[in-house]
Structures are given as C-alpha cells and as structure tokens.
C-alpha cells in the first residue's frame, strides 16, 4: 500500500515537471487577477486594505478551479484512469494521492505567493502569517471539493465552465471563514476560532471528498 502511494506520487511528480509551464499558469492567473483589482477600483491603500482579504481569496479560489479543470483529463484520455478503476488498490487512496500532489504544486504555491500580493494590496505585515495560515488550511478543501467536480465532468467537452458552475457554491464556507479570519486579524481580534473551523472543514473534506471523487470517476469511466 505504501509502495503504490509512493509510486503514484512519483509518477504525478514526473508528469508535472515535464510540462513546468502548466504548473506556472495558475500562479500567473492568480497574479493577474489580483493586479486587476487596483487598476479597477483605484490605488488608494486604505480601500485596498479593506478589499485585500476578499480579493486574494477569490483569486485563489478561481486559480484553483482553473488548475483543476485538467486534473483527470489526460489520465481519462490515455486510459490510465480505467486501469486505476480496475486495479486492486482502493481508488479513493489513489485519487487522494493525485489531489494531494495537485495541492502541493498549486495550492501550496499560492500559500507561498500570497504574502507578496498581500503586501502589494497594502495589508499590514503582521496579518500576513494569518493569511498564510488560512490559505494553508483552506486551499486543500478547495482542491478536494474541486476534484469532485473535475471527476464528475471528466468525460465532458467544455467541462471547465461546468466545473466552475458546480463547485463554486460549495466553496462559499471556505471563502467566508478565510476572509472572516483576515478581517478579524485586521481589527486585532483573535483568529483562532476561524482557523479551527477551517481545520474542521479540511478534515471533513479530506475524509469524505475522496469517496465522492472515486464515485464520480467510476461513473465517468463507465461511459
């Protein structure tokens, strides 16, 4: 069991690094979306500071969704997904490895990149650790829930827009808790409660989402 996890992870890792451009695209998207906001609403630091938590979270959410669109596509097209479904190892574990790898190369990169954009949106430096912490807890939920949508739309043409339509409403709790924590931090209030709730959501998604992803993939493959 441990071996198959390790082998799968290495495979994902190699595949991802053969096309490093694909890894970069969501991050560039994240950067551009965030840069659009000061251009649209004006460069006033006091206004940017109020908007910054929301802007960063919405941009992170969209970037995750965009990067998830192709999560299972190539595996579906070349037939390796069928082998996964047929194999003796639990499909839930294999999709969990795949999503974990996806989070490592997209979600974690957003967590590392976010403080930079926080500074550019005039956030005070002392709230940046809170930004990182909430993103660290929230982005795995985004990846896992989004993977459910990606699994359900795996065989469909133009699945990207449909994926956004299906999954965006489910992202709302993460968005509310993430921005809530940031607002509390900006006002000097404790953020532990929000962080614990986000942690709860992460644990819940980690335990339940793989089941839904596996069910979705089985449906997609059987078509």
């Amino acid at each position, binding site marked *: 069991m441990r071996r198959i996890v390790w082998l799968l992870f290495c495979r994902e890792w190699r595949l991802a690094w053969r096309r490093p451009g694909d890894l970069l695209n969501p991050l560039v998207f994240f950067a551009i979306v965030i840069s659009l906001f000061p251009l649209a609403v004006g460069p006033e630091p006091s206004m940017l500071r109020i908007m910054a938590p929301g802007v960063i979270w919405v941009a992170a959410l969209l970037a995750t969704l965009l990067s998830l669109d192709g999560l299972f596509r190539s595996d579906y097209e070349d037939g390796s997904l069928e082998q996964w479904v047929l194999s003796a190892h639990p499909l839930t574990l294999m999709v969990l490895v795949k999503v974990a790898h996806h989070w490592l190369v997209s979600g974690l990169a957003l967590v590392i990149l976010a403080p930079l954009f926080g500074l550019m949106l005039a956030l005070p430096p002392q709230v940046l650790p809170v930004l990182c912490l909430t993103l660290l807890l929230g982005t795995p939920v985004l990846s896992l829930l989004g993977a459910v949508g990606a699994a359900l739309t795996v065989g469909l043409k133009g699945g990207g827009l449909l994926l956004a339509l*299906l999954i965006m409403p489910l992202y709302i709790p993460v968005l509310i808790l993430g921005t809530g924590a940031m607002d509390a931090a900006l006002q000097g209030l404790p953020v532990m409660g929000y962080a614990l709730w986000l942690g709860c959501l992460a644990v819940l998604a980690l335990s339940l989402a793989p089941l839904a992803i596996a069910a979705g993939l089985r449906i997609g493959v059987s078509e």
Partner: protein
Amino acid sequence: MNWSFFHKLGSPKWFYDISGRWLPWFVLATVLLLSVGIVWGLVFAPQDYQQGNSFRIIYIHVPAAFVAQSCYIMLAVAGIITLVWRMKLADVALRCAAPIGAWMTFIALITGAIWGKPTWGTYWVWDARLTSMLILLFLYFGIIALGQAISSRDTAAKATAVLAIVGVVNIPIIKYSVDWWNTLHQPATFKVTAKPAMPIEMWFPLLLTVLGFYALFTVSLLMRMRVETLRREGKTRWAREALEKMS
C-alpha cells in the same frame, strides 16, 4: 413492514398507473388548500400591527421557501436511491424535481425582494437567509446543468445523484457559515418545537398554503415524471397504448 410497494416503484408501468390514479386527488387537494389558504390569508387574516398589509406576501413567500428547501433534500434522497438500488424512477424524480425546486427558490427570492422593499426599505440585502437561498438556487442550476451536459442517460443519472448528495452534505455547512457571516432576517417563522409567535388567525392560513404548495409541488412533479416516463419507455407496448388512449 411490507416493502413490496417500494419494489413496485421500480416498474415504470406501475408508477404510471398508480400516479394516474393519485393525480386527481392531489389536484383537488392543491386547489382546495391553496384557494382557501390564499383567500383567507390575503383577505380575511388580520393586519400586522407593524407591517400592515405588506406582510400578506408571507402566504406565498414562506411556502415557496419551504418547498424549495425540502425539494433539495428530496433530490439527495432520490440520488441515494439511484446509486444504491439503481431504480430508474428515482432518477426520473431527481431530474424532474430539480427545475421545480429551482423555480420555487426563484419565487421565494422574488417575493422576498418585493417584501423587503416596504419593510427593510431595499429590495436586496446581503442577509444570511437571502444569501443562502441564492446559493441554493446556484446549487439547483449546477444539478440541472450537469444533467443536461451529459448525453448518456445512465451516466447523467449517476453523476447528478453524486452531485446532489455532495450538495446536501454541504448545505448545513453553507447555511451555518452564511448565518455566521451576517444576520438580519427574522428567525424561522415555523418551528416544530415552539409555539408560533403569530396569532392563530395568521398562521393557520399560512399552514394551509404551505400544505397547498407541497401538494402543488407533488402535482407538478408527478405530471413531469409521467411525461418523462412515457418519453423513456416510448418503445414499450404499455406506453404506446397509454399515448393512444390520450390522443
């Protein structure tokens, strides 16, 4: 308990026959409950001491919101039945109920907006319950869109079933997070556990319209399901005979 009725539900022909026999009674119940409830509520119920006559929209707004929320739970139950027992009829119910639920949500939102103008002074506020109804509408849109995007009927059935179940697991989380985020709306009108805050002349017609809306939902669901069953079973003999009898 005798489960034979449950197994019979797997047969489209049986469903078509039995629903044809039930339908007139549900239509009768809908007409009676809605006409009595609405006339009573709109004409005879006393005015609200604060809101005057504008509160009367409650007799449309609250029932629609009730049905909208229960319908989503029904979708998830139908989804579980589709996935576990592979019952065709559950899938028909899921696909036929989703648009009705979306319309009910839409009615609740629109009447809420119309009600909001005289009482809160604005058509829309980003209040917790309004927002969660809006999100519910988006969840319905997602199910309808997924069902339409997948061409294979069997795959579409299973995929929408999974989505409905994922949605229903998320609904309480969304609900509580939105409640936490902002709250201005009055608390729930009816609670099973507590005595209603309204006088009986006000809440009894409301109870009638709530039941009437459920009956209306049942009628439109049964009618949609009957048409969809005929469309799917169009090649069988009983469906052709039923169609010939109609024309």
